[in-house]
């Protein structure tokens, strides 16, 4: 393939990944690394470097739109970013030391978990939980506009959430992804933060987390300009378009298709990692 063809094809695939990721809410970054390694036979280290910069682009590009909704909580975000950035730094250093087959296997497991999570029904919103002393001291509790007016929430299990966020940061640094699946585990399930608050806050955090490992990747020579360029521009354009068009009716089946794609890619990554193809 010539560089022109390669650039055009990778940009198109990245565009579709970004578009579907934004429409389904599953994020496009997670499918990019497996697509680049399996379809285009790109070395997984180059793929991770390119995916990482595209994660910063989508997160930061969508931030302005999310902020207008007024649900995100910058205190929760900033507090948890201490955990995610530390984790990301650790993950990036680990990534340069462990074999690529191990990276592929970890990636496969994360993809399978994401596919499982995307099919699981969301737990019903907790109405009134008692305030947690630690969360109160850290001023994490907040409120957001709901259909019936202002709704306040009390954040729970701060230490558990903080530790899980460290893990999410480490995975993000290790695999070059936003690791939304682990963030959901930490914010929705452990800390009981309302769905809308946790998605918008996590979007804010993803860019900062990725920036913490991007420096390490760049200095190690994992970020190739010829590959990162079509990936970053494609994903950014796709996700910006995706966040603008509302195809409500189709989202459910789109989500199903996209989770199947994630499932298949996860199995592929596991297989190739286990049999030493990556």
């Amino acid at each position: 393939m010539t560089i022109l063809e390669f650039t055009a094809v990778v940009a198109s695939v990245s565009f579709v990944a970004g578009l579907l990721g934004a429409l389904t809410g599953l994020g496009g970054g997670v499918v990019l690394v497996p697509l680049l390694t399996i379809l285009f036979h790109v070395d997984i280290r180059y793929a991770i470097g390119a995916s990482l910069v595209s994660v910063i682009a989508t997160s930061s590009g969508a931030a302005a739109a999310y902020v207008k909704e007024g649900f995100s909580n910058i205190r929760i975000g900033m507090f948890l970013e201490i955990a995610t950035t530390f984790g990301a730094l650790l993950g990036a250093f680990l990534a340069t030391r462990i074999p690529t087959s191990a990276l592929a296997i970890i990636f496969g497991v994360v993809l399978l978990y994401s596919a499982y999570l995307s099919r699981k029904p969301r737990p019903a919103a907790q109405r009134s939980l008692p305030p947690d002393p630690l969360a109160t001291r850290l001023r994490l509790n907040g409120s957001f506009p709901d259909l019936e007016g202002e709704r306040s929430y009390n954040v729970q299990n701060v230490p558990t959430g903080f530790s899980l966020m460290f893990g999410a940061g480490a995975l993000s640094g290790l695999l070059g992804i936003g690791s939304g699946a682990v963030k959901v585990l930490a914010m929705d399930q452990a800390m009981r933060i309302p769905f809308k608050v946790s998605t918008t806050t996590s979007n804010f955090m993803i860019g900062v987390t990725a920036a913490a490992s991007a420096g390490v990747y760049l200095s190690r020579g994992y970020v190739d300009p010829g590959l990162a360029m079509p990936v970053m521009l494609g994903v950014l354009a796709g996700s910006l378009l995706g966040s603008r068009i509302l195809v409500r009716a189709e989202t459910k089946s789109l989500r199903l298709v996209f989770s199947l794609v994630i499932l298949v890619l996860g199995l592929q990554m596991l297989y190739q990692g286990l049999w030493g193809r990556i």
Partner: protein
Amino acid sequence: MPAAQAPAPQRQPRKASLGEGRWDDHRIEVILGNLLRAGVLLSAAVVLAGACVYLSRHAHESADYRIFRGEPSDFRTIPGVIRSVINGRGRGLIQLGLLFLIATPIARVAFSIVGFAMERDRMYVAFTLIVLAILLYSLLGSGVGV
């Protein structure tokens, strides 16, 4: 999976019943959101310009990313990137755009310090300084700066 699990944006009118302290936070967030978008658009423009130069020169060479070689130092360090931009290299320009992109969330964290300081929230000024220190360590301490 950025924007993970985010539902398609809902365009609900903002309720006017927000508390005072919350409104301050929201104002900071709006400024930060616009800052982030400006940073991303700037870096995308620089990357696109670099892409034009790169593709106009190398379009017909063959693309091969099967074997990991690591980037040359011109594309791995800030001085190297600046040097290659001055030399008019397209890939140097792409890397410069990517450096702007990495700097965008860092700028957001730096501006948050100002925001929290204006709210006189010392605890969160301290938290934000920790995050900024980690980010600067990653960017400068890992060898990108040299």
